[in-house]
């Protein structure tokens, strides 16, 4: 059972309730203030947001937009609020955004963040990114709340970065191509392909010209057969305006609208709206190789970075062309050098002239003729030897002086007749010319020697022939002159002879002179034929006997010959040996002015020779005359008559010799002839 409340109790209850209400009111007020504060804060955030914020109702119409969205759309708030959001979208975006708007309102799952294009008041399209959600207002109506960011610039920057990355990739690929490709045509073709594949150029073509402007090569990518007419045109020397212009300037030639500018160009058929062209010359240093052309989206045309990198690519290509050209030149030079070197190597190898190279005074190279010249079996016999080993000491000083001249002036030196030392120690004559040379990277001296042994021999032969001719002329002039003089003398005396005895005496003198003349003619004949005569077993003793008999018959003098022949000798000789003895006996008698003329003849065997000693008691031969006779036997330089010369020639044929002995009285001649056992 309920107890009835007292008035006080009720009052108390009311008082408590009031207090409670007051407390609630205070709390509510506090909440209200907090809410107000919160709303203010969010409003401020929304109003000052860098993102465009909007609320769209269920009828596509804007309920709320912040200032930023107005800035993005470039419309005032009044022109936006209450308008269908699709009015501010481009055609492409309208369907997309509306579709998602509807689906989102239905609670279907759609991406909350995506991109589309808005159209500003001025008609410019801006790319925006939207992040949206749906809420219900206090009345339970669905509201779409979204935040929009203008990402046009960011997208442009991203595109630029992407584009620049592509450019860098293209440069890297072109550079990789440059690094590995050493063939000009493949390089250019590869570069065009790379530029198209990597850069987004529509086409690329490169023309290369020679220094006189003639087409060297042309290559393309993206054009195919459409490029053929251009090649024909270029071959004819007809250059498109852009090419000509690019060749004449280092800056890039940019044509934004080829369709209206390049109307005469056959390449214009390959262009469409929105495609421009760039052309720049490929140059390195002062060398201009040609032009790189590309067709490119107009949007890229005026981009400085694009142009700069386009130029960088052409610079790299030009450098590569220069390197290839340089390499080709180097290879060509190297090949020419190799060919030349090989040619000279072969020439030197087959050269009849001896060739050697010395460096630091040591032999470093010899050719086969040099080996033969010095009697070496192998190059190693000479290589490494100091040049003083092969040059005669008499010539070493002058050779060293010549070498110093070569080293200091770098000039070759003329021929010098030198003597060289062969490996067997014998001397050999050579005419040497020398010139500076780099051999195996070191300064060296090339020496070419002509073996003049044969030349010397021929020269000696010529000299000998000349002297022989002089000798014969002298014999004719002197000996024949003397004979004629004697005959002339006897003739005069004969003409004036008063008695028979005188007449006979002079006639005998004339006959003797004629006989002398006859023997002179015989002697000359023997000199010319002796070398071809046969050597036989010849009776020496009989030859001496025959000669004594003849000399006694020839001279009307008292001649005593004392024979001291030790035995019978057979020698290697022939009939001309009689002539030798007769000549010696004739001289013995002729140069003995008194009678009797005493001639001692003695034989003696020594080794394989028989020595025949013939001594007379005549005038003798002075030392000077002896020396002249001996000298004349070889050189014919002295006028000593034909007698001894003939004697020497005959004995020479028999491998024998003669000697004029130095004796106190008279003359002693010793003849040596090989004997036959």
């Amino acid at each position, binding site marked *: 059972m309920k107890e009835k409340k007292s008035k006080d109790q009720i009052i108390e209850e009311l008082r408590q309730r009031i207090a409670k209400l007051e407390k609630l009111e205070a709390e509510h007020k506090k909440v209200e203030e907090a809410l107000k504060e919160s709303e203010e804060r969010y409003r401020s955030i929304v109003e000052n947001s860098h993102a465009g914020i909007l609320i769209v109702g269920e009828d596509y119409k804007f309920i709320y937009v912040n200032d930023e969205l107005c800035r993005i759309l470039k419309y005032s708030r009044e022109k936006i609020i209450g308008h269908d959001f699709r009015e501010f979208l481009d055609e492409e975006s309208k369907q997309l955004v509306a579709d998602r708007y509807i689906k989102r309102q239905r609670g279907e799952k759609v991406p909350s963040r995506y991109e589309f294009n808005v159209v500003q008041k001025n008609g410019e399209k801006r790319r925006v990114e939207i992040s949206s959600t749906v809420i219900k207002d206090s009345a339970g109506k669905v509201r779409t709340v979204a935040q929009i960011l203008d990402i046009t610039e960011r997208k442009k920057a991203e595109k630029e970065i992407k584009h620049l990355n592509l450019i860098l990739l293209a440069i890297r690929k072109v550079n990789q191509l440059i690094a590995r490709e050493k063939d000009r045509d493949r390089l250019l073709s590869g570069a065009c392909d790379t530029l198209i594949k990597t850069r987004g150029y529509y086409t690329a073509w490169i023309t290369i010209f020679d220094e006189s402007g003639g087409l060297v090569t042309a290559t393309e990518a993206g054009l195919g057969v459409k490029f053929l007419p251009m090649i024909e045109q270029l071959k004819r020397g007809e250059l498109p305006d852009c090419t000509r212009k690019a060749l004449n300037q280092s800056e890039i030639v940019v044509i934004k609208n080829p369709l209206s500018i390049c109307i005469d160009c056959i390449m214009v058929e390959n262009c469409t709206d929105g495609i421009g062209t760039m052309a720049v010359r490929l140059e390195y240093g002062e060398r201009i190789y040609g032009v790189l052309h590309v067709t490119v989206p107009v949007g890229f045309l005026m981009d400085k970075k694009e142009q700069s990198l386009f130029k960088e690519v052409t610079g790299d290509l030009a450098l590569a062309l220069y390197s290839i050209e340089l390499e080709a030149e180097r290879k060509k030079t190297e090949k020419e050098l190799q060919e030349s070197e090989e040619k000279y190597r072969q020439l030197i190898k087959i050269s009849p002239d001896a060739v050697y190279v010395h460096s630091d005074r040591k032999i470093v190279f010899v050719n086969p003729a040099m080996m033969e010249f010095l009697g070496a079996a192998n190059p190693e016999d000479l290589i490494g030897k100091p040049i003083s080993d092969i040059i005669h000491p008499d010539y070493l000083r002058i050779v060293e002086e010549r070498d110093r001249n070569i080293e200091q002036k770098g000039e070759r030196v003329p021929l010098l007749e030198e003597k060289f030392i062969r490996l067997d120690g014998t001397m050999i004559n050579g005419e040497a010319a020398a010139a500076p040379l780099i051999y195996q990277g070191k300064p060296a001296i090339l020496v070419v020697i002509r073996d003049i042994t044969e030349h010397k021999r021929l020269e000696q032969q010529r000299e000998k022939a000349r002297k022989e001719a002089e000798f014969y002329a002298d014999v004719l002039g002197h000996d024949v002159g003397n004979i004629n003089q004697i005959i002339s003398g006897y003739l005069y005396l004969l003409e004036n002879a008063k008695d028979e005895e005188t007449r006979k005496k002079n006639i005998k003198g004339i006959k003797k002179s004629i006989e002398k003349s006859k023997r002179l003619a015989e002697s000359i004949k023997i000199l010319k034929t002796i070398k071809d005569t046969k050597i036989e077993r010849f009776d020496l003793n009989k030859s001496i006997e025959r000669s004594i008999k003849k000399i006694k018959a020839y001279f009307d003098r008292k001649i005593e010959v004392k024979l001291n022949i030790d035995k019978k000798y057979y020698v290697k000789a022939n009939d001309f040996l009689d002539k030798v003895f007769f000549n010696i006996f004739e001289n013995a008698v002729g140069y003995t002015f008194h009678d009797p003329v005493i001639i001692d003849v003695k034989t003696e065997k020594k080794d394989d020779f028989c020595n025949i000693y013939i001594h007379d008691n005549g005038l003798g031969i002075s030392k*000077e005359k002896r020396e002249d006779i001996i000298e004349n036997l070889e050189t014919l330089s002295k*006028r*000593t*008559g034909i007698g001894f010369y003939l004697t020497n020639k005959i004995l020479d044929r028999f491998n024998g010799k003669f000697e004029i002995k130095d004796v106190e009285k008279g003359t002693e001649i010793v003849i040596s002839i090989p004997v036959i056992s």
Partner: protein
Amino acid sequence: MKILMIDDEIMILTLFKDFMETFGHKVEIAIDGDTGLKKFKNTNFDLIVMDYRMHGKNGIQVSREMMNMDKNVKILFVSADSSVKKEAIEMGAVGFLLKPFYIDVLIREIERVGKA
């Protein structure tokens, strides 16, 4: 006259010696220059008949040595070589006979020189 004949041909020497002596000249002979110079040093000759081409010294060389010893020496040159004549005359030879010559020409030349 006292004559020295120098020639390397013994037959010429003996023939000419005999011949000149028949004309009253006293003749000595020498087979070469050195022999001739020896005789020249020891004897005063009125005339030297000098051949040019001889063994050892030639006639010009021998003549110069003689002229050095006696500048008044008279030398008559005989040679089969006509090219020697100019040198011989320039050197101071009194005459030059070109071989072969008739032997009487020598006598006339000797007489001419003797009168000079």
